């Protein structure tokens, strides 16, 4: 017998192992749901899979009576759009500020304390101020996502830049590079895969802020729908929506990982993969 630490499950077995916990969750759910429904057939908290399927069918494949839209898809598109813009803007800001902070000590001295402070402010608590500055439209949702994740991203980027071995920066200088050249040729390209990794890490928070933003003032979106139907405890809608959000989040995460592996093979071949 090899030591546990050296035992690697084979591929199909790994799949199986990975699926088991989900399977157990489903079983648990069915048990709990059946028990509740036996007591009160109208129970809304843990609906049967059939009710969930029915609700989803209605939302995804029948046009809404009110607007004629396919509610589910409309919600998905709106949310993904907001998420993409919000995360994109955040990543861009984080890339610029994080790289500047990391490479130029003067910029770091100037901005780092402020960014640290901002990263500590709970965004939900200052919503009123955000509203007057950015209004209540789409902008405010994007801004909430940005305010929520950008400080983290900037700090992470800064840290990643600082982790680039000093020898490389020195080497670049001996090759005649000026500060700008070091940034564009040495720092930026090395930090790009790390940016993707950070974005992947912060996607959870981004979804959170997206949902919060949609709960505040909105007419569509996955978060909007969840908060709306929460009013009458429609878990038959909430659960599949949460599942769908989880799936979307997973898909986005997966896509980013693939993208990163495709764009930056040198990074992934030397860094152990996050499972």
């Amino acid at each position, binding site marked *: 017998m090899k030591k546990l630490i050296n035992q690697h499950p084979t591929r199909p077995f790994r799949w199986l192992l990975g699926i088991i916990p989900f399977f157990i969750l489903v079983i648990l759910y069915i048990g709990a749901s059946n028990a509740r429904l036996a007591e009160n057939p109208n129970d809304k908290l843990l609906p049967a899979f059939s009710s969930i399927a029915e609700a989803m069918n209605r939302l995804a494949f029948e046009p809404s009576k009110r607007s004629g839209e396919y509610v589910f898809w409309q919600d998905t598109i709106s949310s993904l759009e907001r998420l993409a813009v919000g995360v994109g803007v955040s990543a861009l800001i984080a890339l610029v500020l994080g790289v500047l902070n990391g490479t130029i000590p003067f910029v770091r001295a100037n901005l780092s304390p402020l960014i640290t402070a901002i990263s500590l402010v709970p965004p939900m608590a200052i919503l009123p101020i955000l509203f007057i500055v950015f209004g209540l439209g789409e902008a405010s949702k994007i801004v909430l996502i940005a305010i929520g994740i950008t400080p983290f991203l900037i700090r992470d980027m800064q840290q990643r830049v600082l982790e680039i071995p000093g020898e490389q920066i*020195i080497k670049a200088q001996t090759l005649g*590079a000026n500060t700008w*050249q070091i940034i564009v*040729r040495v720092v930026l390209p090395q930090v790009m895969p790390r940016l993707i990794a950070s974005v992947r890490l912060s996607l959870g928070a981004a979804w959170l802020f997206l949902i919060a933003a949609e709960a505040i003032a909105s007419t569509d979106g996955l978060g909007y729908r969840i908060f709306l139907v929460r009013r009458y405890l429609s878990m038959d809608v909430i659960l599949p929506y949460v599942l769908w959000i989880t799936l979307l989040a997973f898909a986005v995460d997966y896509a980013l990982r693939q993208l990163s592996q495709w764009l930056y093979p040198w990074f992934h071949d030397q860094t152990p993969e996050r499972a």
Partner: protein
Amino acid sequence: MSYINIKNVWKEYGDQVVLERINSTVEEGEFITIVGASGCGKTTFLKMLLGTEAPSRGLITVANEPLRYEPDAQRGIVFQRYSVFPHMTVLQNVVLAREFEKSRFLSRLFGRARKQAIEEALTMIEAVGLSAAANKYPHELSGGMQQRLAIAQALIKKPRILLLDEPFGALDPGIRADMHQLVLELWRRYKLTIFMITHDLKEGFYLGTRLWVFDKDRIDPHHPGAFGARITYDVPVGSVDQKASEKIRESLQQHNAAQDEPELSGVSS
């Protein structure tokens, strides 16, 4: 005045004196090899010449100007541990110096300039024996190959002063001899001033024009950090290049001979 003047230079880390009373002058075009016990401060000394560490006391001047405490294109470096750019292929790593030089803003070359830079880089890559790996990333290379890449990267820049920190430690003898040739050739052609740390005394004796030994000549057994290392010997060696290169050839032959010696028995399966 000499090209490089080192005047009463000390280096201390907190309580620990690493180097003390370093005094020397170096002329342009000298090839200085440095040996010394592990941990005695050779790398630290190189860093001071490079400008990434400042002396605690004393002054270093280059060409009558105080040394700039910042690395620049005048001083090339090959580190003890590989410091190539992991996100670039071998070719890109070597071309980079030209791109920095000729494209201050984009740091990218196009068209003819690019072609020319690539050709030049390929020549250098050929010289260090990495032609077959020109399009590989550093993580795909063995340690020795990475080190050869670092050497190519530094040499293409032809710096006025070249600092080498055990550059050939990870190379096998055959390649090492080729590297010796390469460095000597570039040194002669461009009148580089070279400082090279080595652990191979033979290399130290015959490669350069001058050998420095760093050593502590006073030791306080209760406070090992109380005294620093100094240049205890400063020996002119292999001053005739011919002699040096002869020795090199000799060492080369020794290597080849090793594979031809009569007592060897092939073990083909």
